[in-house]
């Protein structure tokens, strides 16, 4: 007889595979989409620190674009972004607009 599925589960639903959340693309939850306006960016990396996911791409210490596979559109990055001279370097736009 086949072993039932419930017998094969890890006790306590502990996930033993590190980084497995990368398999779950959560970008489809998004209704608002952050847009980066590069000319207003002062590279302070606040957006990278504050993003509750890992959706702000940083390469060689420089902020690049967004990873929209995981960005949920929460808007925290846009809120925290100081921008340049009062002009935000991140704006939230309606998804699909």
């Amino acid at each position, binding site marked *: 007889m086949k072993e039932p599925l419930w017998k094969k589960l890890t*006790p306590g639903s502990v996930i033993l595979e590190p*980084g497995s*959340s990368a398999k779950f693309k959560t970008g489809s939850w998004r209704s608002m989409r952050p847009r980066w306006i590069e000319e207003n960016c002062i590279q302070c990396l606040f957006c990278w620190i504050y993003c509750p996911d890992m959706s702000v791409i940083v390469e060689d210490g420089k902020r690049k674009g967004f990873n929209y596979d995981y960005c949920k559109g929460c808007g925290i990055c846009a809120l925290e972004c100081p921008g340049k001279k009062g002009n935000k370097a991140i704006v939230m736009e309606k998804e699909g607009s």
Partner: protein
Amino acid sequence: MGKIVAVTGNEAVAESLRQVNPDVCAAYPITPATDLMQRFSSFISDGKVDTEMVLVESEHSAMSACIGAAAAGGRVATATSSQGLALMWEMLFIAAGDRLPIIMPVVNRALSAPLNIHGDHSDTMGARDSGWIQLYSETAQEAYDNAIQAFRIGEHPDIRLPVMVCMDGFIVSHSIERVEYLEDSEVKNFVGEYRQVNPLLDIDHPKSYGPLILTDLYHEYKRAQHEVMTKVKNVVLEVASDFEKLSGRKYGLFETYRLEDAEIAIVILSSAAGTTKDVVDRYRDKGIKAGLLKPRMFRPFPYEDVAAALRHLKAIAVLDRADSFGGYGPLFSEICGAVMSMDTKPPMINRIYGLGGRDYMPDQAEKVFDELIGIAETGKVGAIKEYIGLRE
């Protein structure tokens, strides 16, 4: 051989925790909690244990911190009572679902409203479905012994579940009794070293606790959790047998008192069993075959074993020190579950007693036994559920 002392239930259980010396204890040590944790905190202040004490802002946070510490890999204990346990309720299910063996003595006290902090079982009965193992204690000695055994039961590699060690508020927690302590070294050897199977602090093997699991696998996880509970009974008996070798004190899934040849019996938890045993003796002296069954392990409930012990009776009264309003008392429901599997189905009654610390006196047990004599003769049951010990 340890020493014999005169202590309260709280002192005895705090002493057991000192002897076990857990890694972490998170608590909210003011009312509704009792002086149990206050006493344990003194051991920490006096440098008698290495336990890291986390003082938190609520019982909800106390259980949350215990869950974090247990997932990290620590041996964890806390204690609570009454509303404190009620406030932990949400986190209790997480401790059990995550399979974290947190050991928690609970001083059984009433729930508001009206406000009352005296002894009854409303608090832990409200938590009976949380996935915790529950052991009930009649005396300070039993509470001390159960607390030590709880570490071995909960931390057993096949089990890994949290355990509540219940004792009656005030009647046991605040009353001085004779208690035999084990030697520190005996307790240390008995509980042994604890090794968490999946500690978060093992950073070479990163892991996650508490994932989102929806309609795809939640049902299967609950099935697996039920399966663990089916293994608890044997571990409880195995630990009890080792404990008996060490202490000379015998424990099982429940205790029976003059039950083997009894015709009528009371089923009752914790301290009230002591009073009932006295009344059993008086009825035996009168030639009436009275007996008693006192469950020790309430979760998981040992239905088959209880059924085997009760099947020869002519009438049974189940006394509950907690109520399910609009339903039967929680212990009665379990005994009904046990009786269901019997070929003989003795008539049963449910009597609610002692809520909010109302004294349970011998005359209450006498009235119940007198009623059982009538039921045994006629086979006729009047009201199934009634309150006893009500003031006129």
